[in-house]
Protein backbone atom coordinates (compact mmCIF):
# COMPACT_ATOMS: atom_id res chain seq x y z
CA UNK A 1 0.00 0.00 0.00
CA UNK A 2 1.62 3.16 -1.14
CA UNK A 3 0.24 6.15 0.70
CA UNK A 4 1.47 8.50 -2.02
CA UNK A 5 -0.64 6.59 -4.56
CA UNK A 6 -3.67 6.53 -2.32
CA UNK A 7 -3.34 10.25 -1.77
CA UNK A 8 -3.32 11.06 -5.46
CA UNK A 9 -6.15 8.61 -6.04
CA UNK A 10 -8.30 10.34 -3.42
CA UNK A 11 -7.42 13.76 -4.77
CA UNK A 12 -8.53 12.69 -8.23
CA UNK A 13 -11.83 11.26 -7.02
CA UNK A 14 -12.90 13.56 -4.19
CA UNK A 15 -13.06 17.02 -5.74
CA UNK A 16 -11.86 19.89 -3.60
CA UNK A 17 -10.29 17.89 -0.81
CA UNK A 18 -7.00 19.07 0.63
CA UNK A 19 -4.74 16.28 1.83
CA UNK A 20 -1.36 16.55 3.37
CA UNK A 21 1.04 13.67 3.73
CA UNK A 22 2.74 13.72 7.12
CA UNK A 23 5.89 11.65 7.01
CA UNK A 24 6.94 9.60 10.00
CA UNK A 25 10.75 9.68 10.23
CA UNK A 26 10.98 6.75 12.66
CA UNK A 27 11.95 3.23 11.50
CA UNK A 28 8.30 2.19 11.49
CA UNK A 29 7.71 4.70 8.71
CA UNK A 30 3.99 4.86 9.37
CA UNK A 31 3.14 7.93 7.35
CA UNK A 32 -0.26 9.50 7.71
CA UNK A 33 -2.72 11.65 5.80
CA UNK A 34 -3.99 14.92 7.24
CA UNK A 35 -7.57 15.50 6.10
CA UNK A 36 -9.44 18.77 5.97
CA UNK A 37 -12.59 18.71 8.10
CA UNK A 38 -15.02 19.71 5.30
CA UNK A 39 -14.15 16.81 2.99
CA UNK A 40 -13.20 14.26 5.65
CA UNK A 41 -16.47 12.33 5.46
CA UNK A 42 -16.29 12.14 1.66
CA UNK A 43 -12.71 10.90 1.83
CA UNK A 44 -13.64 8.33 4.49
CA UNK A 45 -16.54 7.05 2.40
CA UNK A 46 -14.24 6.82 -0.60
CA UNK A 47 -11.70 4.80 1.39
CA UNK A 48 -14.42 2.48 2.65
CA UNK A 49 -16.32 1.89 -0.58
CA UNK A 50 -13.74 1.86 -3.37
CA UNK A 51 -13.28 -1.78 -4.43
CA UNK A 52 -9.47 -1.71 -4.52
CA UNK A 53 -9.15 -0.03 -1.10
CA UNK A 54 -12.13 -1.28 0.98
CA UNK A 55 -11.00 0.02 4.38
CA UNK A 56 -13.94 -1.57 6.15
CA UNK A 57 -12.62 -1.60 9.70
CA UNK A 58 -11.78 1.37 11.91
CA UNK A 59 -9.57 -0.20 14.52
CA UNK A 60 -8.31 2.61 16.70
CA UNK A 61 -8.88 6.29 17.36
CA UNK A 62 -6.52 8.48 19.34
CA UNK A 63 -6.66 12.07 20.48
CA UNK A 64 -3.69 14.40 20.65
CA UNK A 65 -3.54 17.84 22.21
CA UNK A 66 -1.24 20.39 20.61
CA UNK A 67 -1.12 23.42 22.89
CA UNK A 68 -0.40 26.77 21.29
CA UNK A 69 3.20 27.86 21.63
CA UNK A 70 5.39 30.84 20.98
CA UNK A 71 8.51 30.37 18.92
CA UNK A 72 11.18 33.03 19.02
CA UNK A 73 13.52 33.30 16.06
CA UNK A 74 16.59 35.45 15.62
CA UNK A 75 16.55 37.05 12.21
CA UNK A 76 19.10 39.39 10.63
CA UNK A 77 17.38 42.43 9.22
CA UNK A 78 18.84 45.32 7.19
CA UNK A 79 17.85 48.54 8.90
CA UNK A 80 18.76 52.21 8.88
CA UNK A 81 20.54 52.92 12.13
CA UNK A 82 21.64 56.56 12.52
CA UNK A 83 21.37 57.07 8.78
CA UNK A 84 23.61 54.11 8.00
CA UNK A 85 22.23 50.85 6.71
CA UNK A 86 23.30 48.04 9.01
CA UNK A 87 22.57 44.43 9.59
CA UNK A 88 20.76 44.14 12.90
CA UNK A 89 19.71 41.01 14.72
CA UNK A 90 16.07 40.96 15.76
CA UNK A 91 14.04 38.46 17.72
CA UNK A 92 10.73 37.72 16.16
CA UNK A 93 8.10 35.86 18.13
CA UNK A 94 5.59 33.84 16.14
CA UNK A 95 2.61 32.27 17.85
CA UNK A 96 1.67 28.84 16.62
CA UNK A 97 -2.00 28.30 17.47
CA UNK A 98 -2.88 25.11 19.29
CA UNK A 99 -5.27 22.48 18.04
CA UNK A 100 -6.74 19.14 18.93
CA UNK A 101 -5.94 16.24 16.67
CA UNK A 102 -7.73 12.97 16.13
CA UNK A 103 -5.95 9.99 14.58
CA UNK A 104 -7.81 7.12 12.94
CA UNK A 105 -6.26 3.75 12.09
CA UNK A 106 -8.10 1.91 9.33
CA UNK A 107 -7.68 -1.66 8.13
CA UNK A 108 -9.23 -3.67 5.39
CA UNK A 109 -10.42 -7.08 6.48
CA UNK A 110 -11.59 -7.93 2.98
CA UNK A 111 -8.38 -6.94 1.19
CA UNK A 112 -6.14 -7.85 4.14
CA UNK A 113 -4.22 -4.60 4.08
CA UNK A 114 -3.64 -1.66 6.33
CA UNK A 115 -3.29 0.24 8.42
CA UNK A 116 -3.83 3.60 6.85
CA UNK A 117 -3.50 6.46 9.31
CA UNK A 118 -5.79 9.47 8.97
CA UNK A 119 -5.51 12.64 10.99
CA UNK A 120 -7.81 15.58 11.47
CA UNK A 121 -7.15 18.80 13.32
CA UNK A 122 -9.53 21.28 14.87
CA UNK A 123 -9.26 25.00 14.16
CA UNK A 124 -8.29 25.85 17.72
CA UNK A 125 -8.69 24.58 21.30
CA UNK A 126 -11.57 26.80 22.43
CA UNK A 127 -14.62 27.38 20.25
CA UNK A 128 -13.69 25.65 17.02
CA UNK A 129 -13.26 22.14 18.36
CA UNK A 130 -15.72 20.64 15.86
CA UNK A 131 -14.77 17.72 13.64
CA UNK A 132 -16.97 15.45 11.53
CA UNK A 133 -17.84 12.15 13.19
CA UNK A 134 -16.86 8.91 11.47
CA UNK A 135 -19.43 6.91 13.44
CA UNK A 136 -21.98 6.92 10.59
CA UNK A 137 -19.24 5.44 8.37
CA UNK A 138 -17.58 2.99 10.80
CA UNK A 139 -19.83 2.03 13.69
CA UNK A 140 -16.83 0.93 15.73
CA UNK A 141 -15.87 4.59 16.10
CA UNK A 142 -18.78 5.31 18.41
CA UNK A 143 -17.33 4.57 21.83
CA UNK A 144 -13.84 5.74 20.95
CA UNK A 145 -15.12 9.10 19.70
CA UNK A 146 -17.14 9.42 22.89
CA UNK A 147 -14.00 8.79 24.90
CA UNK A 148 -12.09 11.44 22.96
CA UNK A 149 -14.96 13.87 23.49
CA UNK A 150 -14.81 13.04 27.19
CA UNK A 151 -11.07 13.39 27.68
CA UNK A 152 -10.06 15.95 25.04
CA UNK A 153 -13.29 17.86 24.37
CA UNK A 154 -13.47 17.34 20.60
CA UNK A 155 -17.08 17.80 19.42
CA UNK A 156 -17.88 15.24 16.74
CA UNK A 157 -20.63 16.56 14.44
CA UNK A 158 -22.98 13.81 13.37
CA UNK A 159 -22.21 11.49 16.29
CA UNK A 160 -25.47 9.79 17.35
CA UNK A 161 -24.83 9.79 21.11
CA UNK A 162 -22.13 12.22 22.15
CA UNK A 163 -22.07 11.92 25.93
CA UNK A 164 -19.24 11.61 28.42
CA UNK A 165 -18.04 8.02 28.64
CA UNK A 166 -15.64 7.70 31.59
CA UNK A 167 -16.21 10.83 33.66
CA UNK A 168 -19.56 11.88 35.06
CA UNK A 169 -21.91 14.14 33.11
CA UNK A 170 -21.47 17.11 35.47
CA UNK A 171 -17.69 17.11 34.97
CA UNK A 172 -16.52 20.27 33.18
CA UNK A 173 -12.84 19.67 32.41
CA UNK A 174 -11.02 17.68 29.76
CA UNK A 175 -8.41 15.69 31.70
CA UNK A 176 -6.15 14.59 28.84
CA UNK A 177 -5.50 18.15 27.68
CA UNK A 178 -2.03 19.42 28.44
CA UNK A 179 -3.26 22.41 30.43
CA UNK A 180 -5.56 20.36 32.68
CA UNK A 181 -4.91 20.90 36.37
CA UNK A 182 -6.15 17.94 38.40
CA UNK A 183 -7.69 18.37 41.84
CA UNK A 184 -5.31 19.10 44.68
CA UNK A 185 -5.47 15.72 46.40
CA UNK A 186 -2.99 15.59 49.20
CA UNK A 187 0.13 13.67 48.21
CA UNK A 188 1.14 12.30 51.57
CA UNK A 189 3.74 9.78 50.54
CA UNK A 190 7.01 10.59 52.28
CA UNK A 191 9.02 9.26 49.34
CA UNK A 192 7.57 11.67 46.80
CA UNK A 193 9.86 12.65 43.95
CA UNK A 194 9.93 14.74 40.77
CA UNK A 195 6.57 16.18 39.78
CA UNK A 196 4.79 14.70 42.76
CA UNK A 197 7.33 16.16 45.16
CA UNK A 198 6.88 19.55 43.54
CA UNK A 199 3.12 19.35 43.90
CA UNK A 200 3.34 18.10 47.46
CA UNK A 201 5.57 21.04 48.40
CA UNK A 202 3.21 23.44 46.70
CA UNK A 203 0.29 21.89 48.52
CA UNK A 204 2.08 22.00 51.87
CA UNK A 205 2.99 25.66 51.49
CA UNK A 206 -0.65 26.47 50.75
CA UNK A 207 -2.33 24.19 53.27
CA UNK A 208 0.00 24.55 56.28
CA UNK A 209 2.21 27.63 55.96
CA UNK A 210 4.05 26.47 59.07
CA UNK A 211 5.90 23.24 58.43
CA UNK A 212 5.04 20.60 61.05
CA UNK A 213 7.90 19.71 63.33
CA UNK A 214 9.49 16.27 63.47
CA UNK A 215 7.41 15.22 66.47
CA UNK A 216 4.08 16.04 64.88
CA UNK A 217 4.72 14.15 61.68
CA UNK A 218 2.99 10.84 61.45
Amino acid at each position, binding site marked *: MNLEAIKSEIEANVPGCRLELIANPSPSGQHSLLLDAEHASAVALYLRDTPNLRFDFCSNITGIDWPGKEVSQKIKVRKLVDGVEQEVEETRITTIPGSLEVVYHLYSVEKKHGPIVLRMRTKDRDAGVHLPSFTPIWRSAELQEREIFDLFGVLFDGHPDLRRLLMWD*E*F*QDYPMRRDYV*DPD*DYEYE*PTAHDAVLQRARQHLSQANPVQPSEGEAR
Partner: protein
Amino acid sequence: MDEKLKTELSKQGIFTTSLQELYNWGRTSSIWPLNFGLACCAIEMIATTMARYDLARFGAEVFRPSPRQADLMIVAGTVTKKMAPQVVRLYNQMPEPKYVISMGACAISGGPFKQGYNVLKGIDRYIPVDIYIPGCPPRPEALIDAFMELQKKIDAQQLTGENRPRHLNADEPSEFIVPQFGEHDLEPTRNSSIWEPPLVQIAQTGSDESGSH
Protein backbone atom coordinates in the same frame (compact mmCIF):
# COMPACT_ATOMS: atom_id res chain seq x y z
CA MET B 1 -17.39 -13.44 86.62
CA ASP B 2 -14.17 -14.73 88.01
CA GLU B 3 -12.18 -16.71 85.42
CA LYS B 4 -10.99 -19.34 87.91
CA LEU B 5 -14.52 -20.04 89.10
CA LYS B 6 -15.67 -20.24 85.52
CA THR B 7 -13.09 -22.89 84.57
CA GLU B 8 -13.83 -24.79 87.77
CA LEU B 9 -17.55 -24.79 87.00
CA SER B 10 -16.98 -25.92 83.42
CA LYS B 11 -14.91 -28.85 84.76
CA GLN B 12 -17.96 -29.81 86.77
CA GLY B 13 -20.13 -29.65 83.68
CA ILE B 14 -21.70 -26.26 84.30
CA PHE B 15 -21.43 -23.81 81.45
CA THR B 16 -21.50 -20.14 82.34
CA THR B 17 -21.35 -17.17 80.04
CA SER B 18 -22.19 -13.50 79.88
CA LEU B 19 -24.60 -11.79 77.52
CA GLN B 20 -21.71 -9.90 75.98
CA GLU B 21 -19.82 -13.09 75.16
CA LEU B 22 -22.91 -14.70 73.71
CA TYR B 23 -23.76 -11.63 71.67
CA ASN B 24 -20.25 -11.22 70.31
CA TRP B 25 -19.93 -14.95 69.64
CA GLY B 26 -23.07 -14.82 67.55
CA ARG B 27 -21.93 -11.82 65.55
CA THR B 28 -18.37 -13.08 65.13
CA SER B 29 -19.51 -16.37 63.70
CA SER B 30 -21.92 -15.07 61.11
CA ILE B 31 -20.44 -12.08 59.36
CA TRP B 32 -22.18 -11.96 56.03
CA PRO B 33 -20.28 -9.96 53.43
CA LEU B 34 -21.91 -7.90 50.73
CA ASN B 35 -21.71 -9.49 47.29
CA PHE B 36 -19.82 -6.64 45.74
CA GLY B 37 -16.51 -6.20 43.98
CA LEU B 38 -14.87 -3.41 42.03
CA ALA B 39 -11.75 -4.72 40.27
CA CYS B 40 -9.12 -7.46 40.29
CA CYS B 41 -9.16 -7.72 44.12
CA ALA B 42 -12.71 -9.02 43.73
CA ILE B 43 -11.30 -12.03 41.87
CA GLU B 44 -9.16 -12.87 44.91
CA MET B 45 -12.20 -12.33 47.13
CA ILE B 46 -14.18 -14.79 45.00
CA ALA B 47 -11.30 -17.28 45.20
CA THR B 48 -11.31 -16.92 48.97
CA THR B 49 -14.93 -18.00 49.14
CA MET B 50 -14.47 -21.04 46.93
CA ALA B 51 -13.52 -24.55 47.99
CA ARG B 52 -9.73 -24.16 48.08
CA TYR B 53 -9.63 -21.32 50.65
CA ASP B 54 -13.19 -21.70 51.91
CA LEU B 55 -14.18 -18.59 53.83
CA ALA B 56 -17.22 -20.57 55.00
CA ARG B 57 -15.02 -22.04 57.76
CA PHE B 58 -15.23 -18.62 59.43
CA GLY B 59 -18.97 -18.26 59.15
CA ALA B 60 -18.92 -15.97 56.16
CA GLU B 61 -20.12 -18.27 53.42
CA VAL B 62 -23.27 -16.31 52.62
CA PHE B 63 -22.46 -13.40 50.36
CA ARG B 64 -25.64 -11.31 50.39
CA PRO B 65 -26.75 -9.70 47.15
CA SER B 66 -28.57 -6.98 49.08
CA PRO B 67 -26.94 -4.45 51.41
CA ARG B 68 -29.97 -4.77 53.69
CA GLN B 69 -28.85 -8.26 54.71
CA ALA B 70 -25.10 -7.71 54.84
CA ASP B 71 -22.83 -7.07 57.83
CA LEU B 72 -19.52 -6.57 56.08
CA MET B 73 -18.48 -4.56 53.07
CA ILE B 74 -15.26 -5.76 51.45
CA VAL B 75 -14.15 -2.85 49.28
CA ALA B 76 -12.26 -5.00 46.80
CA GLY B 77 -10.62 -2.92 44.11
CA THR B 78 -10.08 0.53 42.68
CA VAL B 79 -12.72 3.03 43.73
CA THR B 80 -13.07 5.52 40.90
CA LYS B 81 -14.55 8.90 41.67
CA LYS B 82 -17.50 7.98 39.50
CA MET B 83 -18.14 4.89 41.64
CA ALA B 84 -17.49 6.43 45.06
CA PRO B 85 -21.02 7.83 45.68
CA GLN B 86 -22.53 4.42 44.95
CA VAL B 87 -20.10 2.68 47.34
CA VAL B 88 -21.00 5.12 50.12
CA ARG B 89 -24.70 4.74 49.35
CA LEU B 90 -24.42 0.93 49.58
CA TYR B 91 -22.66 1.32 52.93
CA ASN B 92 -25.42 3.63 54.17
CA GLN B 93 -28.02 1.05 53.18
CA MET B 94 -26.43 -1.66 55.31
CA PRO B 95 -27.97 -2.13 58.76
CA GLU B 96 -25.88 -1.73 61.90
CA PRO B 97 -23.68 -3.33 63.09
CA LYS B 98 -21.61 -3.05 59.92
CA TYR B 99 -17.93 -3.35 59.16
CA VAL B 100 -15.62 -2.45 56.29
CA ILE B 101 -12.51 -4.23 55.05
CA SER B 102 -10.46 -2.09 52.69
CA MET B 103 -8.88 -4.70 50.44
CA GLY B 104 -5.78 -3.94 48.41
CA ALA B 105 -3.62 -0.94 47.62
CA CYS B 106 -6.29 0.85 45.58
CA ALA B 107 -9.01 0.79 48.21
CA ILE B 108 -6.49 1.93 50.83
CA SER B 109 -4.83 4.79 48.98
CA GLY B 110 -5.54 4.74 45.26
CA GLY B 111 -2.60 2.36 44.76
CA PRO B 112 -0.90 2.60 41.38
CA PHE B 113 -3.57 5.06 40.26
CA LYS B 114 -2.85 7.45 43.11
CA GLN B 115 -1.75 10.27 40.83
CA GLY B 116 -4.76 9.86 38.56
CA TYR B 117 -7.48 12.46 38.24
CA ASN B 118 -10.24 9.85 38.28
CA VAL B 119 -9.42 7.61 41.23
CA LEU B 120 -10.45 8.11 44.83
CA LYS B 121 -7.35 8.08 47.03
CA GLY B 122 -8.70 5.68 49.61
CA ILE B 123 -12.25 4.75 50.56
CA ASP B 124 -11.55 5.83 54.15
CA ARG B 125 -12.10 9.39 52.99
CA TYR B 126 -15.83 8.70 53.01
CA ILE B 127 -16.58 5.65 55.17
CA PRO B 128 -14.95 4.34 58.36
CA VAL B 129 -12.69 1.36 57.64
CA ASP B 130 -12.08 -1.36 60.24
CA ILE B 131 -9.37 -3.46 58.61
CA TYR B 132 -6.88 -2.57 55.88
CA ILE B 133 -5.15 -5.30 53.85
CA PRO B 134 -2.22 -4.20 51.69
CA GLY B 135 -1.37 -6.10 48.52
CA CYS B 136 -1.92 -5.78 44.84
CA PRO B 137 -4.04 -7.82 45.00
CA PRO B 138 -3.78 -9.42 48.46
CA ARG B 139 -3.71 -13.20 48.42
CA PRO B 140 -6.72 -15.11 49.78
CA GLU B 141 -4.68 -15.88 52.92
CA ALA B 142 -4.41 -12.15 53.53
CA LEU B 143 -8.16 -11.72 53.25
CA ILE B 144 -8.69 -14.61 55.65
CA ASP B 145 -6.21 -13.00 58.04
CA ALA B 146 -8.10 -9.71 57.79
CA PHE B 147 -11.28 -11.61 58.46
CA MET B 148 -9.83 -13.20 61.59
CA GLU B 149 -8.59 -9.79 62.75
CA LEU B 150 -12.10 -8.45 62.31
CA GLN B 151 -13.45 -11.36 64.35
CA LYS B 152 -10.97 -10.56 67.13
CA LYS B 153 -12.05 -6.96 66.99
CA ILE B 154 -15.73 -7.86 67.28
CA ASP B 155 -15.00 -10.32 70.08
CA ALA B 156 -13.32 -7.59 72.12
CA GLN B 157 -16.19 -5.13 71.85
CA GLN B 158 -17.87 -3.97 75.06
CA LEU B 159 -21.63 -3.71 75.11
CA THR B 160 -21.69 -0.86 77.59
CA GLY B 161 -19.46 1.96 78.61
CA GLU B 162 -17.53 4.66 76.82
CA ASN B 163 -15.85 2.31 74.35
CA ARG B 164 -18.99 0.59 73.16
CA PRO B 165 -19.25 0.18 69.39
CA ARG B 166 -20.94 2.67 67.12
CA HIS B 167 -24.15 0.73 66.67
CA LEU B 168 -24.84 0.77 70.42
CA ASN B 169 -24.30 4.49 70.71
CA ALA B 170 -27.30 6.52 69.59
CA ASP B 171 -25.18 9.65 69.17
CA GLU B 172 -22.86 8.09 66.62
CA PRO B 173 -23.87 8.29 62.96
CA SER B 174 -24.65 5.16 61.00
CA GLU B 175 -24.91 6.96 57.68
CA PHE B 176 -22.24 9.05 56.07
CA ILE B 177 -22.25 11.87 53.53
CA VAL B 178 -22.71 10.65 49.98
CA PRO B 179 -20.41 12.75 47.79
CA GLN B 180 -21.96 14.58 44.85
CA PHE B 181 -20.54 14.83 41.34
CA GLY B 182 -19.02 18.29 41.09
CA GLU B 183 -17.72 20.24 38.12
CA HIS B 184 -14.08 19.40 38.84
CA ASP B 185 -14.07 16.82 41.63
CA LEU B 186 -16.35 15.09 44.08
CA GLU B 187 -18.03 17.42 46.56
CA PRO B 188 -17.04 17.24 49.34
CA THR B 189 -13.63 15.74 48.56
CA ARG B 190 -13.60 13.98 51.95
CA ASN B 191 -15.71 13.48 55.05
CA SER B 192 -13.82 15.64 57.51
CA SER B 193 -15.46 14.01 60.52
CA ILE B 194 -13.77 10.68 59.81
CA TRP B 195 -10.68 11.49 57.74
CA GLU B 196 -8.07 14.22 57.75
CA PRO B 197 -4.95 14.19 55.61
CA PRO B 198 -2.00 13.04 57.70
CA LEU B 199 0.83 15.45 58.28
CA VAL B 200 3.92 14.22 56.53
CA GLN B 201 7.36 15.69 56.61
CA ILE B 202 8.67 16.09 53.10
CA ALA B 203 12.37 16.51 52.55
CA GLN B 204 13.36 20.16 52.20
CA THR B 205 15.07 21.57 49.13
CA GLY B 206 18.74 20.75 49.02
CA SER B 207 18.84 17.61 51.09
CA ASP B 208 17.01 15.44 48.54
CA GLU B 209 18.75 16.99 45.54
CA SER B 210 22.17 16.21 46.96
CA GLY B 211 21.03 12.66 47.57
CA SER B 212 19.67 12.02 44.11
CA HIS B 213 22.67 13.24 42.12
